[in-house]
């Protein structure tokens, strides 16, 4: 799956639909002053934006100007040896706060207990260029243990959709499970560059050859003279000591790692168990007002009218702001809705008033005509058509004609939202030629671009104060939360506005994984092995829909293979959502493999194994290893009591051999009671480490978390559409599993392979979906091909 699939089809950068508020001929300062006078008490006087960076509080982790000069853009060392490591990705629970810091610390050779991560400045990223020494990755990336995972920037994109190739931090987005892959080389190099300059500074101070010095645990020593100094003491000199040949600095390969590769507890956990972490929702500023928002529940709709007078006198209420559909050029082509915000002293006041404010919507009738049933019909009808042929190998029709048996199955997957726990929010202050934004954001470079387009203030004057996120699961930052807040604040210059979505609004403002359907048809020979495979998928276009997982080559050997896609247009904004379209595709593929094995009368593990062995895929040995290990761990083949069954599936990304891959296999042991109650009892996981995992503890946590995630996709979750609206708009209707459904036993084992990992934060444990389905079939005799399973009658006798 290409990293940049999502960016295909997004319109070229067009001039944003800027909300203008400056009358011609009046400069911004005069305008603000006039507005302040006109609005009287509402504008509380100009807040001091230049002090924004100092508005810190315990638990806040946004960028601060350093008190001592930085050694380089990633590293500040205080006289007390505290090492501030700047993190250009966002902590969503995946552990990047810790793994990025580990990669820097590994090379810096600083004392890990004195490391304090802090977000990198997205503002400096707009002003400063990347150091020359970070721009070239030696070797061939994935195949070189010392190489890097070069980020795929393609052409320079001013929005920062894919990162910006020559800006200070280059790629600040957090997506596609790529933070370690894309960051490792640069972060190790940043640590190494700083270490070399600390050594050079000490050598100069002591007038000794730098080769005679050693650096370890934040101490520099000169063995022959017995002199030592600490990083904290020498850092101010290192800041002024350039390296004469930074291009000669190399990074450690995995066999030299001492910190990387060890299990490290996440550095933000102490804040998270005491309630001190500052998420976006927790930002409080002097003079801040709150905004609650309603947008048209049918996408593409807008506000026809609203009656602010009806609520004007309610407690705390200040004003209302109508805002248009966010410019699709700022939201990757996705069309959300226009809406209205009520601004009040507290959010609860704003929300209470908004709930009572009469609003009439302008609803596009063609969008209101959509519902789950007619959209599903459209998808199924598309499957009857040939579609866009993406792969066509061998003679598919001729092979079907000579097949001993034909197997065909149609699978369906629903729309699915991210439903992170923290509802969308952002705090924005638009003031004199400067925008300040406090937000948890997976794409700060894009948000910076949006702020500039909406306010007309240049990106160099946009300051993002990054917060941790209460869940991400698909790039918080290109949904419209930032754009809503910026538009509302832009209408209220001088006042920090904290916009917070209700949970119901969050279900409208999220991006969905596309609803999909797939028809798989196989021709089997007399021994049950496939000789022809025809795969047709239909998924709403524009959001990692049809183009995932089947699009290169069949992972399981079949000589005659055709893959074709349909991408009908619906009105739901689809996009990045954990696992993207790949998770649905792996459900289709692995479910079908189970069905074929059953028809062939063969063991599903050995059936898969044999079909992998027949391929020429570069990583087939690793895939076989994963299957073998997971099967062995699970006691595959040993008897289970009635009502219990095991199912196995392969999970891979990059198996076609683009230089990187992530490979795992899982066996799920599932029980189904006679009353139809499903329990995932046990999961055995065999997972590829590539050359090495940076923080195996975080990887284990990610695997555990994704088992829960895809369990929910398999068992409970679906978003349906009625009259063009998302129906399930809170957790009473969109269920999330609780601890009572967590598998009692999860066993994870790693095995080394000879390549770098693509990443593992969003597409592991997709196997839960097909495995529960196959276990239900084994136990009840019923085969269900549409998710989630809990809508079906699973009872048996």
């Amino acid at each position, binding site marked *: 799956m290409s990293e940049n699939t999502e960016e295909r089809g997004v319109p070229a950068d067009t001039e944003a639909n800027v909300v203008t508020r400056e009358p011609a001929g009046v400069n911004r300062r005069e305008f603000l002053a006039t507005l302040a006078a006109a609005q009287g008490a509402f504008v509380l006087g100009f807040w001091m934006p230049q002090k924004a960076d100092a508005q810190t509080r315990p638990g806040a982790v946004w960028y601060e100007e350093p008190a001592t000069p930085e050694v380089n853009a990633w590293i500040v060392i205080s006289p007390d040896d505290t090492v501030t490591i700047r993190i250009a990705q966002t*902590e*969503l*629970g*995946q*552990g990047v706060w810790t793994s990025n810091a580990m990669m820097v610390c590994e090379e810096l050779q600083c004392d890990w207990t004195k490391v304090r991560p802090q977000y990198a400045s997205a503002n400096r990223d707009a002003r400063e260029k990347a150091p020359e020494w970070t721009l070239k990755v030696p070797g061939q990336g994935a195949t070189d243990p010392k190489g890097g995972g070069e980020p795929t920037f393609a052409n320079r994109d001013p929005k920062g959709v894919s990162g910006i190739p020559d800006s200070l931090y280059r790629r600040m987005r957090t997506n596609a499970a790529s933070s370690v892959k894309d960051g490792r080389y640069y972060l190790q190099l940043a640590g190494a560059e700083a270490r070399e300059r600390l050594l050079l500074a000490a050598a100069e101070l002591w007038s000794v050859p730098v080769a005679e010095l050693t650096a370890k645990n934040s101490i520099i020593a000169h063995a022959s003279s017995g002199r030592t100094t600490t990083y904290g003491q020498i850092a101010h000199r290192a800041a002024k000591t350039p390296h004469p040949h930074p291009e000669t600095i190399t990074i450690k390969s995995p066999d030299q790692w001492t910190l990387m590769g060890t299990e490290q*507890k*996440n550095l*933000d*956990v*102490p*804040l*998270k*168990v*005491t*309630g*001190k*972490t*500052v*998420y976006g*929702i*927790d930002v*409080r500023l002097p003079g801040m007002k709150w905004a609650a928002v309603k947008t048209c529940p049918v996408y593409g709709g807008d506000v026809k009218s609203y009656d602010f007078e009806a609520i004007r006198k309610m*407690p705390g209420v200040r004003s209302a702001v109508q805002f248009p559909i966010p410019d699709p050029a700022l939201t990757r082509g996705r069309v959300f809705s226009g809406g209205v915000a009520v601004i009040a002293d*507290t*959010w*609860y*006041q704003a929300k209470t008033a908004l709930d009572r404010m009469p609003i009439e919507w302008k609803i596009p009738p063609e969008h209101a005509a959509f519902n789950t049933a007619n959209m599903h019909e459209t998808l199924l009808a598309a499957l009857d058509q040939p579609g866009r042929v993406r792969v066509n190998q061998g003679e598919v029709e001729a092979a079907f004609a000579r097949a001993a048996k034909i197997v065909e199955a149609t699978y369906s997957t629903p729309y699915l939202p991210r*439903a*992170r*726990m*923290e*509802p969308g929010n952002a705090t924005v202050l638009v003031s004199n030629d400067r925008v300040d934004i406090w937000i948890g954001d997976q794409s700060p470079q894009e948000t910076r671009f949006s702020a500039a387009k909406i306010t007309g203030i240049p990106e160099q004057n946009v300051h993002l104060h990054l917060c*941790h*996120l*209460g*869940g*991400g*699961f698909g790039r918080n930052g290109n949904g419209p939360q930032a754009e809503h807040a910026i538009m509302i604040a832009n209408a209220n210059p001088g006042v920090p506005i904290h916009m*917070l979505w*209700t*949970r119901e609004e969050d279900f409208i403002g999220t991006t969905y994984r596309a609803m999909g359907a797939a028809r798989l048809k196989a021709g089997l020979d007399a021994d049950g092995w496939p000789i022809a495979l025809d795969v047709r998928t239909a998924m709403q276009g524009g959001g990692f829909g049809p183009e995932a997982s089947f699009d290169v080559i069949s992972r399981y050997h079949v000589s005659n293979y055709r893959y074709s896609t349909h991408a009908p247009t619906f009105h739901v904004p689809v996009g990045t959502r954990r696992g993207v379209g790949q998770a649905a595709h792996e459900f289709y593929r692995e479910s079908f493999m189970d069905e074929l094995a059953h028809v062939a009368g063969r063991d599903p593990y050995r059936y898969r194994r044999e079909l992998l062995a027949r391929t020429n895929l570069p990583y087939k040995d690793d895939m076989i290893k994963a299957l073998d290990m997971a099967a062995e761990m699970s006691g595959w083949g040993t008897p289970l009591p009635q009502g219990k069954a095991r199912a196995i599936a392969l999970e891979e990304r990059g198996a076609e051999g683009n230089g990187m891959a992530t490979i795992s296999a899982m066996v799920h042991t599932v029980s189904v009671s006679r009353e139809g109650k499903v329990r995932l009892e046990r999961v055995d996981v065999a997972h590829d480490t590539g050359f090495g995992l940076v923080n195996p*503890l975080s990887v284990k*946590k990610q695997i*555990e*978390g*994704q*088992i*829960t*995630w895809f369990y929910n996709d398999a068992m409970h979750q679906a978003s349906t559409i009625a009259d063009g609206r998302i129906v399930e708009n*809170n*957790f*009473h209707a969109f269920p*999330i599993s*609780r*601890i*009572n459904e*967590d*598998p*009692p036993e*999860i066993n994870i084992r790693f095995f080394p392979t000879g390549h770098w990992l693509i990443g593992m934060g969003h597409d592991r444990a997709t196997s839960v979906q097909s495995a529960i389905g196959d276990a239900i079939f084994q136990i009840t005799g019923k085969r269900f091909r549409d998710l989630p399973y809990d809508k079906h009658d699973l009872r048996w006798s």
Partner: protein
Amino acid sequence: MAFELLVNGTLHTVDADPQTPLLWVIRDYVGLTGTKFSCGIGQCGACTLHVDGRAIRSCSVPATTAIGKPVVTIEGVSPDGRHPIQVAWTELDAPQCGYCQSGMIMSALALLRQRPAPSDADIDAQVTNACRCGTYHRVRKAIHLAADLMKKGVTGTV
């Protein structure tokens, strides 16, 4: 309307609409943000805190119901983050994004008060908070570890 709330041992005078949910009074009037808003309808448990020693979902009760009863939030579990339940949570590296964890810890703490050595079934029945990251596996282990630490007399202050 002005009323008094005893939160984490400190008496606060709050001037808020009496119908304001306890969650929002704690966050916006008392100024403690560790207790989280997520669903607003008492479903997910991100807003769980203790009133009179019982875990409640604070988004769905008016603040005035807590008048005269001690309220404890995540910030009041210990002064230093060293309560056994916090030690256990840290030892297991339980949180991921962390957003639900304040509520999760408050639910687990109420359970441990009631049943110092809870069974898995007790945990299933009483810790019904939603976690989207899927930290349940470590949370369960952390509750059992916290029970052990508390039994051994590693006490915090609540």
